[in-house]
């Protein structure tokens, strides 16, 4: 095992960047006032909040006033969906989404369904892509919201969000009431360029801990003029859009992380792409019966997702963990849930193939030596497990 453990699960969460942590430092115990307070303790944290709002807005080409800070990506997604649904009941009750969305979207849709919404869950193709025409075709006069993620967290496929926005726009042209468009950009913001105007979205969710910021903070971008009901009810914070004393250090950290991402994202992509391709091609060529999940080209620069036939994901992960390698799997067995990843099912994988998936997601600290180490250590693990498997034809006499 190398001296250091190898972390290849950046899509699950990232370490807080040292510079981000430094920015947060003073806001725990020294500059600790409640931003709603009139006095100097409150005014200094209010100023810090507003600076962070500008930093986050700048990352996605938004106005600072369009950023509402939340407790993370899940709250941002829930806020977008429930906020639009509850505020626009008089216009309609239909929501369109896709089968590969994060549970923060899909489970919220189930909640809304119980509360009277009609939900259309669009299928995806074998690489995980949503079709813009299918979105347009699903629109009804009662549609109030379309929610399609920017890139998928498991298989890394980047959805044609701008094209979907166009398709919606041309289909509803002339219609009186609006169809809002939300995108979950939790996996893209800070990693690939995200611009709310280029994407043509009205709402967009980000989670700070996916871009070297702190856990427990995120935001929802809300285009000016969007009718959105609050999700958290209480005080007048966030311009009456999100009650609760602001997580000042978290928000300051989010702001700092957004600013760093803006200037360093291109560089990081450039570094990660060849490493990703080395890992991806290495796995596909060195190990028999391995398939790539997700789109080969429209793909996050840090995501490798493969299915290893005849064996199950958790058993690979445990072996890798003992070798000092941290990765992830879409197998039900890792999550405590009992079905394999809905994403892998949605792209048409049979159950046993879905159970055998492995996801490696690369980031700031990833080195070529780490990739080499994985490519060296994984094949024997797979051989060992296959030798145990009743499904493995190589093992049959």
């Amino acid at each position, binding site marked *: 095992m190398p001296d250091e453990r190898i972390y290849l699960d950046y899509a699950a969460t990232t370490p807080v960047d040292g510079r981000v942590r430094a920015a947060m430092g003073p806001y725990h115990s020294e500059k600790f006032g409640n931003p709603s307070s009139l006095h100097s303790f409150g005014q200094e944290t209010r100023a810090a909040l507003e600076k962070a709002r500008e930093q986050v807005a700048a990352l996605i080409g938004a106005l600072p006033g369009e950023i509402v800070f939340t407790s993370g990506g899940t709250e941002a997604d829930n806020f977008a969906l429930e906020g639009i649904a509850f505020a626009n009941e008089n216009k309609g009750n239909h929501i369109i989404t896709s089968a590969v969305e994060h549970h923060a979207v899909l489970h919220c849709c189930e909640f809304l369904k119980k509360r009277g919404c009609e939900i259309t869950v669009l299928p995806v193709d074998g690489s995980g892509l949503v079709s813009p025409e299918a979105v347009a075709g699903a629109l009804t006069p009662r549609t109030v919201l379309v929610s399609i993620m920017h890139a998928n967290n498991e298989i890394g496929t980047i959805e044609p969000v701008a094209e979907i926005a166009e398709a919606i726009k041309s289909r509803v042209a002339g219609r009186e009431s609006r169809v809002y468009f939300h995108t979950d950009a939790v996996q893209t913001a800070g990693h690939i360029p995200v611009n709310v105007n280029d994407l043509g979205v009205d709402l967009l969710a980000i989670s700070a801990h996916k871009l070297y910021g702190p856990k427990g903070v995120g935001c929802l971008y809300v285009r000016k003029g969007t009718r959105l009901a609050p999700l958290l009810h209480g005080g007048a914070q966030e311009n009456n859009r999100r009650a609760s004393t602001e997580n000042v250090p978290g928000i300051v950290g989010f702001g700092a992380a957004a600013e760093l991402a803006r200037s360093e994202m291109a560089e990081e992509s450039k570094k990660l792409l060849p490493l990703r391709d080395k890992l991806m091609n290495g796995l596909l060529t060195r190990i028999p019966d391995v398939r790539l999940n997700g789109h080969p080209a429209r793909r996050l620069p840090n995501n490798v997702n493969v299915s290893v036939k005849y064996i*199950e994901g958790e058993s690979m992960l445990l072996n890798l963990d003992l070798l000092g390698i941290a990765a992830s799997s879409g*197998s*039900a067995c890792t999550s*405590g849930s*009992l*079905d394999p990843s809905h994403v892998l099912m949605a792209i048409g994988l*049979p159950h046993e193939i879905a159970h055998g998936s492995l996801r490696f997601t690369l980031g700031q600290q990833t080195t070529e030596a780490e990739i080499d180490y994985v490519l060296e250590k994984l094949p024997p693990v797979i051989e060992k497990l296959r030798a*145990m498997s*009743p499904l493995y034809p190589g093992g049959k006499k």
Partner: protein
Amino acid sequence: MTGPYSAKVMDHFMNPRNVGEIPDADGVGQVGNPVCGDIMKMYIKVKDKIITDVKFQTFGCGAAIATSSMATELIKGKNIDEALALTNKAVAEALDGLPPVKMHCSVLAEEAVRAAINDYLIKTTGQGLPGFKPHDESLHKEVHGN
């Protein structure tokens, strides 16, 4: 750090006992299915009602492999009645416990033993275990809630 498992589970997972096939097995049982991600296949050799040899093959998570391994250890050398008395709880306890979401693996291991013995009994006596249902969707539903 060894994930959510006890040291015993990890030992049986990383160094499983009795892995493999018995080409001339006296009984073979397979339980589980790809939907839930666990398939266990168990082979037994029986002589004078004693299980003289046992091997397994498992597709599944760490707990599935560890419970298979432990189950084989627990029935090896035992007579058939003793093996039939093996409960999933006993398997889990022998492994110093399993996380709650993984208890169904121990159920599968118990079922695999019964399936192999059932197969042996049918082959030798023409009659299987009374009331034995081969593992199918019904068990899947039972252990997974749906």
